[in-house]
């Protein structure tokens, strides 16, 4: 089992490293870079939402802060926006901490709504504050234009995010997170400080979302509050990406991101005015028929096929 995983990871890694050799067209490579960005955010969200069960509707806040960090460094200190890759995630993490303290007092839908409200608060603040140039946004001029370069940076970020979440999930923290998702009372009774562990999950989640935001800023070279802190186009699409691929799975968010970006672009390029409509219909269909995402549904199917009928102790009941 372990060897198989390792093998798969190695193959995936080699394939990923070779992508720029196979895909030379900058347009396709651009799509792949977008996938990397969304896969990173999705993976980061998945740690808190998928494994920890804390569904955040406000991750745009961390994304936006990451993006703005890169932009503002460039604007005010006139240093390379690449420093944003350092500052962005740190800023997002620092902001996440008090947010966690506030919102984790709430459970379930109340938590979701509080995060939603916080995301909106950031949007309004960034729209009106002058230090962030308000609604005007921040425009930078990218120094590097080679898509291959961005690809490898994006790949590195995703790999780091995947590795970190994988490590966390397969450690004590991961066990604790899943147990909090499954039953918070039981978790408490086992000595798990649930709020602390939710925050422990939130911090890396915000960190990598902020990192992705900073990278996004470097790549797209422009940010404004309407875009970076967008409820529907960022916060909710993150959840969609994770749900499409499969929550609480290692590769789910990456697969979800690929589907989201590729289908979105294919629809946009081919369906004209109906493209968002078709996308919306697809969302409804997938959620209704694959409530655990593509990976989740496939593994369930696989398990059903493999599993023997009943459980090993079944005979005991029949003999009574």
């Amino acid at each position, binding site marked *: 089992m372990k060897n198989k995983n390792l093998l798969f990871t190695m193959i995936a890694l080699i394939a990923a490293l070779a992508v720029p050799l196979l895909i030379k067209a900058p*347009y396709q490579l*651009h799509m792949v870079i977008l996938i990397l960005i969304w896969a990173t955010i999705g993976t980061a969200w998945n740690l808190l939402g998928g494994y920890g069960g804390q569904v955040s509707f406000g991750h745009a806040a961390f994304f936006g802060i990451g993006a703005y960090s890169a932009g503002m460094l460039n604007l005010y200190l006139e240093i390379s926006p690449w420093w944003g890759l350092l500052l962005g995630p740190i800023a997002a993490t620092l902001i996440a901490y008090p947010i966690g303290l506030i919102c984790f007092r709430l459970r379930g839908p109340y938590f979701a709504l509080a995060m939603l409200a916080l995301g909106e608060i950031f949007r309004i603040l960034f729209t009106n504050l002058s230090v962030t140039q308000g609604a*005007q946004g921040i425009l930078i*001029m990218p120094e590097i234009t080679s898509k291959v370069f961005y690809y490898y940076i994006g790949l590195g970020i995703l790999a780091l995010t995947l590795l970190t979440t994988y490590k966390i999930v397969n450690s004590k923290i991961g066990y604790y997170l899943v147990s909090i998702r499954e039953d918070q009372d039981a978790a408490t009774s086992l000595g798990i400080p649930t709020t602390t562990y939710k925050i422990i999950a939130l911090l890396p989640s915000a960190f990598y979302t902020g990192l992705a935001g900073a990278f996004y800023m470097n790549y*797209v070279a422009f940010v404004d509050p309407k*875009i970076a802190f967008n409820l529907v186009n960022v916060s909710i699409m993150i959840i969609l990406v994770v749900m499409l691929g499969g929550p609480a799975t290692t590769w789910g968010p990456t697969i979800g991101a690929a589907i989201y970006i590729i289908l979105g672009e294919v629809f*946009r*390029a081919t369906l004209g005015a109906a493209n968002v409509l078709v996308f919306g219909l697809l969302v409804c269909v997938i959620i209704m028929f694959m409530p655990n995402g593509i990976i989740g549904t496939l593994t369930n199917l696989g398990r059903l096929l493999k599993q023997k009928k009943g459980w090993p102790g079944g005979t005991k009941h029949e003999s009574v």
Partner: protein
Amino acid sequence: GGQSTAASADVIKVGIILPLTGSEATFGNMEKNAFEMAYEELKAAGKTTIGGKSIQLLFEDDQGKQDVAKSATEKLVNQDKVAMLSGAYSSASTNVIAGAAQSMNIPILVTTGSADDITKKGWEWVFRGTAAPASKYTVALWEMLDQVIKPKTAAIVYESTDFGKSSATGFRAEAEKRGIEIVYDQPYEAGAIDFKPMLAKVKNTNPDMVFAVSYLMDASMIVKQSKELDFNTKLLVGGGAGYTLPEFKENAGEASEYIASSTLWVPSVTWPGAKEFFDNYVKKFGKEPDYHGAQAYATMHIIVDALNRAQELNNTGIQKALKETELTTIMGPIKFEDWEGYTNQSKPYTYVVQWQQGKLEVIWPEAVKSAPHVYPVPNWGER
């Protein structure tokens, strides 16, 4: 979508990125219509075939989102191999599209996006002809203010968007120069139902004039509610966008009377072809075009003109041809110049218009006015 990855020998592709879905689609589609209308007219005049190659327009939808705008740019440039780009509606998308074009050395002629920054970055591949930098929308207005109105105090309200903010910044700076006291200066979030709290406060400051930068529907909400509050000021001037559109009058009704606005274009301008454009558009699409349509129409003309003059149909050839443009369009003469820190920016012609008896009349510059200005405007009760 484009199927060919290599540039076909017999077409010159022009990529145009517009918001064809999403909340900005009204204007995106209006511009697309105008582009196509101009294209057909130019085709009939035989101008779209250059040395055996015909010009082909490729429209891409950016959904009003900036990462999609980036994807669309990538697709047009790298997959469809367009010779040049145009379009870009919102400032946000324009920023991204122009930045990407610049980094890929592809000439782009911006149609509408008007944030000052776009032509202030020294980007040599980025041209802006039919759109003024937002802070320059008010050139004509200031002439008129200086000569006729001479306000002592002014209030500024503006939507919290890039355009609103740029416009307000420009107005504020000019007012400061003249020692006009700004008694109220605040942004608002577009889409509000009730502007009365803000307007009541403006009313309390009793300004000589109000400068308001609003999107379409906020504009009509603001004047309607000013009327409801019986808030009288000597002149309410819109900073472009919302206050000149047909929908504004439709929704604001009587409250639109005597509202003034600076604008880039009205059907009654004297530039050749303007009236024909307006009439033909109405005939063809059953809807009145506003200055966005005119921008797209004029842009198509500039593109065809430049392509016809280009010595070589590659990026540098087209860039050079654009740079040498001297063409009078329905938006006025277009010439890409470097001035006041702008590069490749045509000097704008702006107008002040005023709604009089339900018609949008040009009241400034004097030379082209279609009706005398009404100032100070009568109180609401007397209109």
